[in-house]
């Protein structure tokens, strides 16, 4: 499979003015400003296959947005190379822009007082689509994203969920090969989030669009993405499949058990997370003890009424990565 994105040894440094405290220091700063170098992205390398759905995650300030801006050609790298669909995003930014779409949670591309159909029409002309092509594409996207009922209402009167659907549809007007989604589900309720996830999966399936997603929402990552890249302090700290992230790498399971007596358990590698009368929640470290051994041990002590074995929630995995658990 061909690479949609190929990044090698990418580094980005910024110069930031040092602001001194006090009046005299401020005046000195005006005459002889001092700068410090900040390394926002440090020597990262990765590939994204065509048609892949990739999660690009990391805490605030980790370097996610900077990396996206570098990949889309908005920022110039200090060193390293980037190839997007075989193009250099910095020398061929305009040409590349016809093949990529972006949705930024913080920046709307819809005109606030106009209905979404106007914004979509405008985007069509920005991407040099003919009137007929734009009309056909809007009809297609309106069908997929179920926009028909509010396509003629001013954007200001739409719900957040309706607006996000229009934002994504707008980013797909020119049938991009890669879609960059930066926090698309921010502020949405559970039901709408799920709907947006379904739509992203649908567009990936129907148009083979490569999806590059950044999100702090564990559900987005778990339910949409196949692979993940974790970035922290500008460096890539983990790369692999979501399955690996959950099953192999973390190497922990959660056992929720209901018993006929109070359960007291003291096995190396087993931590009691919660205990209430005849119920307990245990965290099992698989490198120390197997789930089977733990269950056998429980059965020796008490009768089991109900038991559930699950993985550690995605939120906890991500939280661990952010805190340096995998670094």
């Amino acid at each position, binding site marked *: 499979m061909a690479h949609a994105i190929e990044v090698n040894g990418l580094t980005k440094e910024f110069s930031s003015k040092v602001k001194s405290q006090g009046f005299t220091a401020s005046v000195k700063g005006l005459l002889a400003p001092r700068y410090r170098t900040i390394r926002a992205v440090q020597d990262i390398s990765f590939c994204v296959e065509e048609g892949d759905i990739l999660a690009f995650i990391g805490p605030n300030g980790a370097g996610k947005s900077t990396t996206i801006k570098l990949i889309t050609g908005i920022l110039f790298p200090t060193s390293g190379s980037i190839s997007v669909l075989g193009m250099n995003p910095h020398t061929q930014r305009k040409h590349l822009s016809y093949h990529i779409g972006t949705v930024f949670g913080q920046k709307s591309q819809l005109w606030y007082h106009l209905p979404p159909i106007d914004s979509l029409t405008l985007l069509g002309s*920005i991407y040099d689509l003919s009137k007929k092509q734009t009309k056909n594409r809007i009809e297609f996207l309106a069908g997929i994203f179920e926009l028909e009922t509010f396509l003629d209402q001013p954007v200001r009167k739409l719900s957040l969920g309706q607006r996000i659907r229009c934002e994504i549809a707008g980013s797909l007007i020119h049938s991009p090969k890669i879609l960059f989604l930066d926090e698309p589900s921010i502020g949405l309720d559970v039901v709408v989030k799920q709907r947006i996830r379904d739509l992203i999966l649908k567009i990936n399936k129907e148009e083979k669009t490569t999806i590059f997603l950044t999100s702090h929402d564990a559900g987005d990552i778990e339910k949409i993405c196949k692979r993940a890249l974790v970035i922290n302090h500008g460096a890539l700290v983990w790369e692999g499949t979501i399955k690996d992230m959950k099953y192999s790498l973390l190497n922990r399971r959660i056992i929720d058990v209901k018993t006929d007596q109070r359960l007291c358990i003291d096995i190396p590698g087993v931590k009691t997370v919660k205990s209430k009368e005849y119920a307990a929640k245990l965290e099992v470290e698989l490198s120390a003890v197997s789930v089977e051994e733990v269950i056998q041990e429980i059965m020796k002590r008490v009768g089991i009424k109900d038991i559930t074995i699950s993985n550690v929630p995605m939120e906890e995995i991500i939280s661990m990565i952010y805190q340096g658990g995998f670094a």
Partner: protein
Amino acid sequence: MIRKYSTIFSFSLKNQMVYVPAFMFRNVFFILVLFVFSNLWRVVYGARDTIAGLTLTQALWYLAFTETVELGKVRIFDEIQTEVKEGTLAYTLNRPYSYLLFMYAKGLGSSVPQMLSLALIGSLFSFVFAGPLPYFNPAAAAVVLMGGVGCTLAWMLLIGVLSFWFEEVTPFYWLLQKLIFIIGGMFIPIDFFPPWLESLARYSPFAFSAYWPAIVSVDYSSMRFLTAAAGQGFYILLLLSISALLYRRGIRQLSVQGG
């Protein structure tokens, strides 16, 4: 190429139409300015029929037209400054258009509804308080008034681009505004100036934002119209070219600031 910017212009105009009732209310200030100046000019003219070739009627209409341009334009440098400061400019860059021409077309489109409401009120006021103009060429007036806004917007684009280097560019706008007020003949037609200042001011870029659109509207001649249109075209191109050059350097500056 042209289609995308004309579409941006028309959608920007449409988007701004929603504010028309708000403009009408804001135009109370405009009426106040016209009222004060109409009284002032009456005192200045006294028993004289003309000053520097302009009648009292023309002088009052002149102000209505300069104010239409001045109050009609939108402050596009504000939007550019905010986008540069907050780094959100980056989000609009990966589109196949020129950011500067996008902002310019958007600014022109947003200015039209404001200008129309101002022109309507200014004309009504001038008609009631000063009477009709002896001769008025509406097509020529529309072209040069739009050209006046085009000149001011080109200045504002340049000021906006300066925000790549300056954290606050509003003082540059204040400076521009004062130059248009004084040298550009905003309140007083350049013809009233002493000869040395008149020769300096007449072909300055600031005059093409205020004096030329208004003088063509109140005292039309084909020569004046051609001078105004050519001057506006020249300065718009010049300012857009300087903005484009600075913008190219600024984009690298944005890279340094981190977007």
